[in-house]
């Protein structure tokens, strides 16, 4: 049980690291939002799931309640986080942000 929780939490940390790396290193707005949205969602889900398993260790009634609450947070993150990413990219597109292309980099440098 503990080992499973540790594995999911450390996987979450790895994905968070990837998301941060993408946010800092990707070339333009869209790819950065993509990295942040994808990585954030998956890593938050993994970490919350791991924490839920940790809570569930004793399997008292109140712990089960806490586990259910954490799972509900997961559901809402699963709905809201991609929606936010979509809204951000949509707003960027209608504001006229140009997507990055490989030629831009070559002409600039």
């Amino acid at each position, binding site marked *: 049980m503990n080992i499973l929780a540790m594995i999911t939490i450390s996987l979450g940390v790895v994905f968070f690291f990837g998301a941060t790396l993408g946010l800092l290193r990707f070339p333009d707005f869209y790819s950065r939002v993509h990295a942040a949205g994808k990585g954030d969602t998956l890593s938050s889900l993994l970490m919350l799931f791991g924490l839920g398993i940790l809570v569930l260790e004793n399997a008292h009634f109140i712990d089960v309640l806490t586990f259910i609450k954490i799972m509900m947070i997961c559901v*809402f993150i699963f*709905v*809201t986080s991609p*929606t936010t990413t*979509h*809204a951000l990219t*949509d707003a960027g597109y209608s504001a006229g942000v140009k997507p990055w292309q490989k030629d831009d980099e070559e002409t600039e440098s």
Partner: protein
Amino acid sequence: MKVFAFVLVIVTGIMLVVTAADFPAWGDAHSPPNQYLSTHYITQAEHETAVPNMVTAVLADYRGFDTMFETAVVFCAGLAIAAILGHEKKKRYVVRRKALPKTEEGDIIIRMATRFLVPVTQLFAMYVIAHGHHSPGGGFQGGVILAATFILMTLAFDLKTILGRFSEKMTLIWANVGLFIYAGIGVLCVLLGSRFLEYSALHKILPGTDEIMARSHSMLGVEIGVALTVMSMLFAIYAHLVSKGRLEDGL
């Protein structure tokens, strides 16, 4: 005049800093505020009000008068913004009780997510209001969450549609109702032969309660009043600010 105001601000600031140096040390157990009242709240709040969350007990019961006028401040802020920005000519919206638009400009993904989230969030807001006795929460927080759902709806749909369902007039009515509930509970205590906002008198009309449980129950009533006022006034402030008072389209 500007120089005078500047000098006044500087002098006041210096006086404030000098006074702050005289404060008792932070966390000092022997300072005057920590000796009588705080000790009483910490040790006796649960016995006297049957509310485990001490903050709610202090906020809604011991210092209920203070909280009532905090609610009134929110109310006045909403009224002031409506009075300043609301002078422009407005059209009356007659779209009442209309279903949310099916094909509207805007984004279907955001609209569907909003449709899913708004009822759940409103349910959670009511939980926050009702559970303020036992966990962090209460009228102000729940009211803000309720207002946030309306603001989310105006972002996902448009301001006109939401104002057709929860119009400016309705916001004013509900803000008044909220404040009336709060002050009404206070007056009810006076009518039952006690002091203003001293809830223990209410055990005479609340069935199945003693003096302690009456305090706990009337705190819930007070919180509901606060939540109604905060919800409607925050939404009214948002609707006015975002459309420069015209209440038309906005963002």
